[in-house]
Structure formats: structure tokens, C-alpha cells
């Protein structure tokens, strides 16, 4: 049984905030949120290597401007690598892409590794890295409070048609705040029970009844302790006369400056190019260039 088994959220860099006071930190959180959403949409929608390279370049440029060491961002992707490699292998083997005009690199039994397979794996990695790094950049440069206010401001149009936008933004904030608390509480419970002889390391076997019986003494106290903590928060909010979003004024008001509009315009243009790259012939050009270098 290793110590790391209790450290549930240690390897996760996504969700942390790094105060380096860069122009990206100062940018309007609404702009950053919209930019992040557009990035996710553009990257999931495209399957062009040129487009994804462009998206990756945008994110790397963002890291440079935000003065965040790229190595730190890379470390966030490390725990996912083995799994990603597995997915890549799966994709290369299980999905045959044998068009007539593709180069065959390697052939063994029923497994054929072609240029198309290599492209599919490269696409998978590029897509994944662009997404994780893009969202990491958002979380590294924006505090939770800014994110909450930004979400609330962006959801304001929904409030007009009667949806509880303020309440939902606050709910999201409470949820974000409670995730690390849950991790702490779980560690505490696991250690307490391991010290009394519980064995959480026994992942062996498929005996699911045994697995579930081990989870019960962990989950039930976890949920009850969390509800108890929630009661404290409710009491604190009510003691400060919180009554919901109606008629509430705000301490924080966002004023988008020229720089913010410029940032948004830049992101929109680059992401439009990311989408457009799949339509034009840019992709074949990039692919031909890579194959030429390869030879």
C-alpha cells in the first residue's frame, strides 16, 4: 500500500491559479471564458492537423504572454500519457484506414500501420493537448471568484427569461470550492479506516459486492460530513442575510477595455482559421511537408 493512494488530487494541475500578474491575468474574465468555450468548440469540431497545430500555437503563445513556464503546463498532461498512448494504439489497430494511396510503414499479421494511422494518432494527441492546455491556461490565469462573476455576467440574458442565472453561478462556485474539501475529507476518512485495518488497496478481483461493501463505510460518512459542512455555510450565508439573486447589487462590475476586445477578436480570427484549415487544402500541404521531412 503506497502513500500516494491517499493523495487523490495531487497530480491535477488543471484547476490551479498561478498569480503572475500578466496581461492575460488582467483581461476581462468574460472574454477569457468565451475564448475558452470557442477553443473547445473549434478543437472538437475540427479534424485537421494544420488547424490543430494553429490552435496549439495560439495556446503556447498564451502561455508565453501569461509568463507561465510551459514545463508546468506539460506536467499536467503527464499522468494522462500512458492512457492516451493506449488509446492511440487502440485507434491505430482497431480502426483500419486502408485507402489505396496511403504509405504502408509496417505490416504484421492483420496489423497494418499506415500513414493514415499515424495521422489519426497525431490528431488524437494534438486535439487532446490543445484542449487540456487551453483550459489549463484559463484556470492558471483566472481566479475562482473571477470565473464565478464572469459566468454570472455571461448568463445574465438567461435571467431575463426567468432562469436562475445568479443562483446557478453561485452553485457552481460552491461546487468548485467543495471539491478540494471533499478530497481532504476522503483522505482523512481513508487514513482513519486504514489505521483500523481497512484495505483499500485490494483492487484485485472482480468481486463487486466486496468492492461496494468497502465503499459504504467511506461514502456514507463522507456525504454526511459534507452535508454538515454545508450546514455551516448555509448558516453563515443566512446570518449575512443572503436571500437569493433578486434585487441584488454587485460589488464587481466588469468594463471591457480595448485590449479585451482586441484579445477576443484575435481569438475569434485564429479559431476561425482553425476551422477553415480543415476545408481548404492546407492540411494536405502540412501532411506532405511532414512526410517529406520524414523521408
Amino acid at each position: 500500500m503506497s502513500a500516494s493512494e491517499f493523495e487523490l488530487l495531487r497530480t491535477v494541475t488543471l484547476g490551479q491559479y498561478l498569480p503572475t500578474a500578466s496581461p492575460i491575468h488582467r483581461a476581462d474574465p468574460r472574454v477569457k471564458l468565451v475564448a475558452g468555450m470557442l477553443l473547445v468548440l473549434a478543437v472538437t469540431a475540427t479534424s485537421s492537423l494544420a488547424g490543430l497545430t494553429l490552435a496549439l500555437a495560439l495556446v503556447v503563445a498564451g502561455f508565453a504572454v501569461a509568463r507561465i513556464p510551459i514545463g508546468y503546463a506539460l506536467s499536467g498532461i503527464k499522468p494522462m500519457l500512458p492512457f492516451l498512448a493506449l488509446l492511440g494504439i487502440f485507434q491505430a489497430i482497431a480502426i483500419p484506414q486502408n485507402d489505396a494511396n496511403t504509405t504502408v510503414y509496417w505490416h504484421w499479421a492483420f496489423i497494418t500501420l499506415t500513414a493514415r494511422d499515424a495521422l489519426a494518432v497525431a490528431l488524437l494527441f494534438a486535439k487532446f493537448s490543445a484542449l487540456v492546455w487551453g483550459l489549463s491556461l484559463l484556470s492558471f490565469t483566472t481566479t475562482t471568484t473571477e470565473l464565478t462573476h464572469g459566468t454570472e455576467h455571461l448568463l445574465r440574458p438567461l435571467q431575463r427569461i426567468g432562469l436562475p442565472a445568479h443562483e446557478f453561478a453561485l452553485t457552481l462556485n460552491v461546487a468548485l470550492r467543495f471539491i478540494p474539501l471533499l478530497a481532504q475529507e476522503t483522505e482523512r476518512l481513508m487514513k482513519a479506516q486504514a489505521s483500523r485495518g481497512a484495505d483499500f488497496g485490494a483492487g484485485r478481483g472482480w468481486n463487486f459486492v466486496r468492492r461496494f461493501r468497502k465503499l459504504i463505510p467511506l461514502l456514507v460518512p463522507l456525504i454526511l460530513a459534507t452535508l454538515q459542512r454545508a450546514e455551516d455555510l448555509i448558516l453563515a450565508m443566512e446570518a449575512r442575510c443572503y436571500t437569493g439573486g433578486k434585487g441584488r447589487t454587485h460589488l464587481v462590475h466588469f468594463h471591457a477595455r480595448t485590449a479585451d476586445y482586441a484579445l477576443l477578436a484575435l481569438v475569434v480570427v485564429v479559431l476561425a482559421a482553425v476551422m477553415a484549415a480543415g476545408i481548404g487544402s492546407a492540411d494536405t500541404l502540412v501532411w506532405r511537408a511532414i512526410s517529406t521531412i520524414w523521408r
Partner: protein
Amino acid sequence: MSTEAVVQSTPARKIVIAGVMGALAVFLGWTHLGFIPWVAGAALTIMHVPVIIGAVLEGPVVGTAIGLIFGLFSLLQAVLAPTGPVDVWFQNPVISVLPRLFIGVVAWLGYKALKNVNEPLALVVAGILGTLTNTVLVLSAIGLFGHLPWAALPPIAIANGLPEAALAAILTVAVVVAWKRIETGTRKSRM
């Protein structure tokens, strides 16, 4: 706190319970604590149990909000860290988000209908109905998009849905009975 105290539901209470249970759903998914390996291939999940508990404690609106957080997280997880070909299907919000909005409402309806008859029984029913809503709606959405043939869906619903319903019912009863200090007849439950 007296045993019979009726806690009044305020906006602060609804928001905090929704946030906390949403966090729990995300936490169970993130750490994979909420998955139990199962012979039928796909792991059993208890990630939707916070939705059921929240709906039982604070009503359908809170249940829907937690369902939304759960759905958005499973969408995000499918996009960011897909664990196989099945996760790619969940990159579609109609499969990952929409079905989850109804878990809380159905669980709450089941609980409300039986609450005055027998509260522990009402909790069991809420756990089962909430889980089946999740299973049936998600599988229907998968069928609708043609990822799997319709004939393949009922066996999956039975192989995964039924044990999940049982787990959800056990957890819902264990948590809510202890939290609300409901007398189960045999002995008074205490925290």
C-alpha cells in the same frame, strides 16, 4: 437540533446543497471512486447518487441543478480525458447532459408520492427510479444517434441498470436516514 425539526428551505440552503452535491458527483467521477468494476464490461457508476440525494433533500429544482453539473462534468470528461470509444459518444450534450436533467425530478416525484406512507421505502423507490431514469434516457439517446442498435440496449439496461439501481437505493437510504434521523423501526439511527 430536535428530531422533528422541520428545516425551512431558503435560497441559501438550495444553492449550497446543490453546489455540495454537484461537487460530490464531480469528485466521484474525477477520482474514479464512483466506479465499481463489473463483469458486464462497462463499470457500474454511483455518480448519479448525489443527484438523487439532493432531489430528495431539497426538491426537483435542486435535483435538476445537480443533474446539470453532473452532465456538464461528464461532457467535459469525455472531451478532456476519454477512456475509450464509448466516451466519444458522450461528447454529444444530448447524450451526456440532457438525460441527467431528469434524474432529480423523477427521483423527487417517487419520493414525494410515498413519503407519507413509509419514508425509508420512499427513499428506496427514489434511488431506483432516479437510476433507471439515467440508464433508460442515456441509452435511448445513444440509440437515437445510432451508436448502438436498439436490440443491444435492453441487455445493457438490465446488466448495468439493475445493479446500479440497487447500489443507489442502498446509498440513498443509508445517507438520508442518518441525515434526517428517520426512525427505521428497529432502532433509532444516530450519527
